[in-house]
């Protein structure tokens, strides 16, 4: 009975250690404005913001961006969310 309990505690400790390690490697920069860009593209006002980057071992797993498009009177036309996996390069190219 005592051995079973010790095995259980050991397994729990090992699982926790692995989980912690994974969490240390994956970090997400939630709601952190990494890049911002406001521009007027012809007759559209474009406000762009990189919202979130999910990193693992300092490599980007996923990147997300939000773009708000406004017309010439400042009326919101649409809000668009974009996602890429691998890197933020293609999103940054849209800014």
């Amino acid at each position, binding site marked *: 009975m005592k051995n079973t309990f010790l095995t259980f505690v050991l397994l729990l400790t090992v699982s926790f250690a692995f989980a912690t390690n994974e969490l240390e490697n994956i970090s997400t920069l939630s709601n952190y404005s990494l890049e911002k860009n406001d521009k*007027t593209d*012809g*007759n*559209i*006002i474009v*406000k762009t913001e990189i919202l979130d980057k999910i990193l693992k071992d300092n490599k980007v797993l996923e990147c997300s961006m939000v773009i*708000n*498009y*406004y*017309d*010439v*009177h*400042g*009326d*919101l*036309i*649409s*809000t*668009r*969310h*974009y*996602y*890429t996996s*691998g890197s933020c390069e*293609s*999103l940054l190219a*849209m800014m």
Partner: protein
Amino acid sequence: MKKIKTSILFIFIFFSAFSQTKLEIHYNVYFNFGLPIEKLGVLKITENKSLFEIQTKNANSSLKLNENGEYTKVVSFTEKGFIDSYFIDFEKQIFVLEENILGETYVVTRGLHNIDWIVMEKTKKIGSFDCQLATGEFRGRIYNVWFTTKIPIISGPWKLYGLPGLILEATDSLNQVQFVMESIKTIDDPINFKSLKGSKEITFEEYVYKKENYKKEFSKKVDSKLPREIRGESVISKSKGLEVFDNTNN
């Protein structure tokens, strides 16, 4: 409180005799439908014509006389910009608008629209002008406007007119649209409407369709240009913007 539904033509005939001067009034134009924007509004008026232009701060327009003795509209920009124009000929009873919708400029010519103004007792001074309050509904918004009979011209900024005096200030009930007079001066230039090169003439029905659908059209266009590696989701805004068109054809 007195409701006025007097015909615009009648007011025009009555007051035209008093207003022989050409005036240029500058308004500070403020829109806030999500992104606050300030613009310059320039209203030029004579006894029978008015031209209102909403300009970006980096744009201006003027009429230049060419070799054939005709006036040509010249728009100059320091950067990318645009101008929306609203021209009224009170004598001929026509209203011409030239607006930019997603980079294309359209011209629409039609009759004058009516706004059923209710003139209130309330008064205030704007600059040296005694003004009176009036309220009226136009395309989905209720406007409170201050007009002065000291300038007995039935004109005003944008598409707001029809009171027995010039509108110097207009604010909608949601505080999203505002026109505030900044300056007024006399001018010598003629007032004529000249559409921009490349403007397309369309009917009022086509104009309404474009205004109601440009958000969807724009989103389709953006989607079609999206690189393959990017996944996208979009929410088309339901904001009513500056004006909402109903079936009254007004």
